[in-house]
């Protein structure tokens, strides 16, 4: 205790000991990969290869001319077997490029270049071309964050090494094993944005990562901020408040308070893109949970199926129902099939076995106010949940439902086991639909 943190939040059981001290292993080359053409927030890429084309590892296979987007690349050498609609871990179906590998792989290496020799614009371009997106899970294209609109200066870059999700240790291992790359990536981000200050925020439950980074940072002036282990410490707004004491105003972005936040994994991806010329085609995935036989940290190529990755960890164990999640248990998305690919934002695959699965029944709200005391955004989730469920959208907006960051603290603490976040999502969905319909109507009237 005594470390910096944000207001409210929860302390779930972390279960990080399952994988925290396990070194990252490189997964064997997959035979086929399915690479979705959308692994980021923003415009979907268009395929730029055809069925039957030969592709090499790192070759661009999809791109689109839109500011908020990121290209995708082949993650293995081989032949394009098909371009088809396929399952996506986000719970949707997306056009994907299926590549059948020829069993060969490329070695990526290179000497560390001098950052001073690259112009900020060139850095941004290189980040975009490498298809780098936020690797914490949301998948926002990094190049967009590096290009603030005119009149907005970025003063500080914060690297997010909080990893507040239970089970996940991918970022932890990155910081412990490759601290030099993390620090170099942060410097590159500072150069690209013109920021004068660099920070790395880490929760105090990763002492080895803190030590490693402190050594790597040396006298560069980059500050390591040790934060309390509390969920959702790694949420962008919470991290900025904890680290710098600034609050991002409602409806604004971190750059409105002069800050850009990036994941530590993103920093390493930037290092490899600039020094090795390696696009974002491989990432570290924590495979954990009480339903995995042998939890591991694996370096997996994008497009490898969940089934194959789980197979490398001894498979799913135990009888009964399971939940397989893309991500951790607090914000992860449950999968309906194992034939989904690992994407750029897959920080973990968590398997929750029966006994730990949520109950289906819930009790009436007893107004215990646990959710109010837990909500990091200062909302009243028990009311928002009711408004969302009953589609009372005016009340939903009045109680600032749109500010919800969907961290799930409210559902987590609810003693009545009410699915509050699910109902709040419904409220947000209905508002979005209402706006879409209104826009469509306005368009029709114009015609």
């Amino acid at each position, binding site marked *: 205790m005594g470390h910096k943190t944000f207001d409210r939040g929860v302390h779930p059981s972390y279960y990080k000991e399952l994988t925290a001290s396990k070194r990252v292993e490189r997964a064997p080359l997959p035979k086929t990969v399915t690479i979705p053409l959308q692994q980021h927030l923003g415009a979907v890429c268009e395929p730029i290869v055809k069925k039957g084309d030969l592709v090499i590892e790192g070759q661009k296979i999809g791109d689109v001319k839109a500011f908020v987007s990121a290209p995708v690349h082949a993650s293995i050498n081989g032949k394009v077997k098909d371009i088809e609609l396929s399952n996506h871990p986000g719970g949707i179906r997306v056009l994907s490029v299926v590549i059948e590998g020829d069993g060969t792989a490329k070695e990526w290496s290179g000497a560390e270049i001098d950052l001073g020799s690259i112009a900020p614009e060139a850095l941004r371009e290189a980040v975009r071309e490498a298809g780098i997106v936020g690797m914490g899970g949301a998948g926002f294209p990094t190049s967009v964050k590096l290009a603030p609109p005119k009149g907005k200066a970025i003063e500080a870059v914060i690297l997010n090494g909080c990893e507040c999700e239970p089970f996940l240790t991918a970022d932890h291992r990155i910081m412990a094993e490759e601290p030099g790359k993390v620090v170099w990536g942060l410097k590159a981000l500072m150069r690209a944005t013109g920021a004068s200050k660099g920070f790395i925020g880490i929760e105090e439950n990763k002492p080895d990562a803190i030590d490693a980074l402190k050594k790597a940072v040396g006298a560069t002036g980059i500050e390591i901020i040790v934060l309390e282990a509390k969920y959702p410490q790694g949420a962008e707004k919470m991290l900025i408040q904890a680290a710098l004491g600034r609050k991002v105003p409602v409806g604004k972005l971190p750059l409105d308070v002069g800050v850009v936040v990036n994941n530590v994994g993103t920093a390493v991806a930037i290092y490899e893109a600039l020094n090795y010329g390696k696009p974002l085609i491989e990432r570290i995935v924590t495979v954990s949970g009480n339903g995995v036989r042998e939890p591991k940290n694996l370096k997996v190529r994008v497009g490898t199926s969940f089934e194959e990755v789980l197979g490398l960890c001894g498979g799913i164990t135990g009888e009964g129902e399971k939940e397989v999640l893309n991500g951790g*248990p*607090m914000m*992860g998305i*449950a999968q309906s*099939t194992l034939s989904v690919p690992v994407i750029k934002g897959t920080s973990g695959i968590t398997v929750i076995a029966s006994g730990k699965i949520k109950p289906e029944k819930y009790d*009436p709200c*007893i107004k215990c106010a646990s959710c109010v005391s837990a909500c990091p955004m200062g909302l009243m989730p028990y009311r928002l949940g009711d408004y969302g469920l009953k589609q009372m959208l005016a009340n939903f907006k009045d109680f600032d439902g749109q500010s919800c960051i969907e961290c799930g603290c409210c559902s987590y603490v609810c003693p009545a086991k009410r699915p509050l976040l699910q109902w709040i999502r419904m409220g947000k969905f209905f508002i979005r639909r209402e706006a879409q319909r209104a826009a469509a109507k306005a368009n029709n009237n114009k015609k």
Partner: protein
Amino acid sequence: MEDKTNDKTEVKSAPEAPAGPGGARLFVTSSPHFLNNESVPKIMHTVVLALFPAMAASVYFFGFRALLLYAICIGACLLTEYAFQKYMKRPIKIYDGSAIITGILLAMTLPPGFPVFGAILGSVFAIGVGKQLFGGLGFNIFNPALLGRAFLMATYPVLTTTWVEPRTVQKAVDAVSAATPLALMKFEGKLTPILDLFTGNVAGSLGETSAIAILIGGLFLRYKGYVNWKLPLGYLGSMAIFSGIFWLIDPSKYPDPLFHLFAGGAMLGAWFMVTDMVTSPTTDIGQWIFAITGGIMAVVIRLFGGLPEGVMYSILFMNAFVPLLNKHTRPRVFGAIKAKAE
């Protein structure tokens, strides 16, 4: 991106993707997939446990009669709950412990010599009108036990104010009627020694007399995290400060703050009724207003009202304001100040 509004759906894994040994079924639900270990019955049963010291003290001071009243009230509350849930075709939830709490709390507010039939009537009213007619647990506006007690106050005005001395101080074999410390203070200007108030060695309602026993239970609940510290602190604190002002003005006329805290239902009310989750506000500021105003009101009724005791009415009165407080004392949304300043 995706429509996450689907209710919990169970999806069998696709045939081409056998999900490990035994073809485990995959569940798809909306995040979070982790919940803590709390539950409504767990909270309620812990509250029941926390009431044990005060129950034990009342049995010690008032004997078998106390045990009988507890049994009657708990039984009647559970039966009423069951009957209403059955009749209204709601799920039967008599095991969640909330009706037991109402039964115990109602019994604790009754004089030891209260007739059995009256206790049953009060229990039926507390659960039936105070809770189930509002929609059951979570929907009631007033604390059911206090509402039951208020109802009995109106129907049995004499019996609800006829007290007996505890066994430990009775001189005669038969129980003699006696006055409570608050009534002594109000109508005769006599003060009861603080030590007797603290241990509970005085005339009064079953569970209200022993301040120490209630305090043990209350602190246990606080330790378990089921009591919001603002509520008892605000209520007792405002009682102490407000009564202290009058005591400083005229110590011969007004009793000292300690007397107020330990006499009557103040302790029981502050730890087990003000803190009732369902009928207290959900916001920080709301909780402070609720508790502090309630405390002041209790002292006002005690000192200047027609009744010797004001805890019950002060809490019931503030209960009525809870929806209003919840609506108008919302927490500050993250980042809201700067947005408004622009």
